[in-house]
């Protein structure tokens, strides 16, 4: 089993304009892409939304990692396509839904690849999210790579005890993961209890008014990004409401094998 899936969501510090952007501006940008992708079902619109992201990925110098997380999502993308197609959607609509998923995933991956958990925490705090909540969130993000490492050790330990993950029929293969999942969940719970105790003994939450050492400040470029996102999104809404987009019609459709759908 490969744990490369997580790599695409792991932060790496690089001196690119995307990495240096204010996390709030970046979040708004991501959300803009996100909302636009959810707005349309038209394939041309979704192609545009996907293509818009490519220069951003290029600017963040993270092609390889981005491609890695796209590859990791491939299976799910194929599943979405097949499910849509089998249950009676047209070929084009199924492709559009797949593209929507790919766009969402790409936007999220881009955000997490280029935003450090610390920046994210600061952004949440300055947006007046209670510290306990923002701390929980950043800790969760930070623990993903640790958990991935744990998962690899658990897999190694169980394989050393003769467990063969890809042996047996479909149901057996699913059951093969029980010896992996239980130790992983148990150690995650143990870890969280230990973390909570360590935090409390270091006075977590002792003073309600925290004074952050670093204060995030938006730069001109950040405001430009936000305005640009707003304009693009407004444009998207306008197109959605008032412009008749051309439709692509490929007359391929699955014969109705499930008449109740």
């Amino acid at each position, binding site marked *: 089993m490969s744990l490369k899936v997580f790599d695409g969501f792991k932060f790496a510090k690089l001196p690119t304009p995307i990495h240096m952007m204010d996390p709030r501006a970046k979040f708004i940008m991501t959300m803009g892409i996100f909302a636009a992708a959810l707005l349309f079902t038209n394939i041309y619109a979704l192609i545009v939304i996907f293509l818009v992201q490519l220069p951003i990925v290029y600017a963040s110098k993270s092609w390889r990692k981005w491609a890695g997380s796209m590859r990791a999502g491939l299976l799910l993308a194929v599943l979405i396509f097949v499910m849509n197609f089998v249950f009676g959607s047209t070929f084009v609509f199924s492709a559009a839904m797949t593209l929507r998923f790919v766009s969402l995933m790409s936007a999220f991956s881009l955000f997490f690849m280029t935003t450090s958990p610390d920046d994210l925490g600061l952004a949440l705090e300055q947006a007046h999210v209670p510290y306990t909540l923002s701390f929980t969130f950043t800790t969760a993000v930070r623990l993903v790579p640790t958990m991935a490492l744990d998962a690899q050790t658990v897999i*190694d330990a169980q394989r050393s005890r003769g*467990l*063969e993950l890809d042996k047996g029929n479909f149901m057996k293969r699913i059951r093969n993961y029980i010896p992996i999942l239980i130790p992983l969940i148990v150690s995650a719970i143990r870890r969280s209890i230990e973390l909570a105790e360590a935090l409390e003994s270091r006075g977590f939450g002792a003073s309600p008014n925290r004074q952050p050492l670093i204060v995030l400040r938006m730069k001109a470029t950040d405001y430009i990004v936000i305005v640009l996102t707003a304009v693009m999104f407004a444009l998207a809404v306008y197109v959605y409401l008032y412009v008749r987009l051309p439709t692509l019609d490929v007359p391929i459709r699955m014969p109705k094998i499930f008449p109740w759908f």
Partner: protein
Amino acid sequence: MIETKGLKFAYPGYSEVLRGIDLTINDREFVAIMGENGAGKTTLVKTFNGLLMPTAGTVRVDGVDTRDSSVARLSRDVGLVFQNPDHQLFSETVREELAFSLRNFGYKEDTIERRVATILETLDLARYAESSPFVLSGGERKRVALAAVLVWNPKHIILDEPTIGQDYQQKDRLRNFIIQLNAQGKTVIIITHDVEFVAECKPRIILLSKGLVIGDRPAEDLLTDGQLLEKASLTRPQIGQLMHQLRDFGLPERAIDVYSAEQAILQALRRKR
């Protein structure tokens, strides 16, 4: 026999962890692998049962190249006990936990029952047979993890940091148990930082540093070589330190455990009288 030739290993995208290791561990040998954190100890033993494949060189277990086998097949002969028991315990009862590997290896139910009962006795776990492994103490969980490997009676046994979290009495028992296993004809390989434990067992020590073998000698030789120990961030065992400081009085430095030190001191005292 476990044999490595020019063994190199690197995790994809990282620099080499093992940088060319040539080793032969014979059947029935008792070996301790020591070295600083990150020296590559755990990585090395993970190549012994095929969990990791060499990026260069070979690992042969009883003559079979690990590349031509599978983890499941190699594990029947090479039992690897991981450092942290929490990475492997998952069953509802200790009994079920011990039966897991035997089921994987396709043993019959009556054999499984017999073997589990024996190992429960041997490792003093019988009273926990129906308990959940999760309610046991750290030391007990560690013993369950050990039992879970010994239960299929592998020919070579590898223990990663077996003494961590064990109290002194348990450590003593563990030592006797390991020596007993070795006497029964098993190859025993332990990874450890515990110089005191090693000084008492006196195995052959393989000293790793930054992915290379920097020392491969009997415990009495290696644990008295000040320069080498420093290089591997180790210190002499306490008795060894004492004997080192008393060497000008004609006491042997090589006496690194309580028993041999006692003998040497008694001898010296008798001579004086």
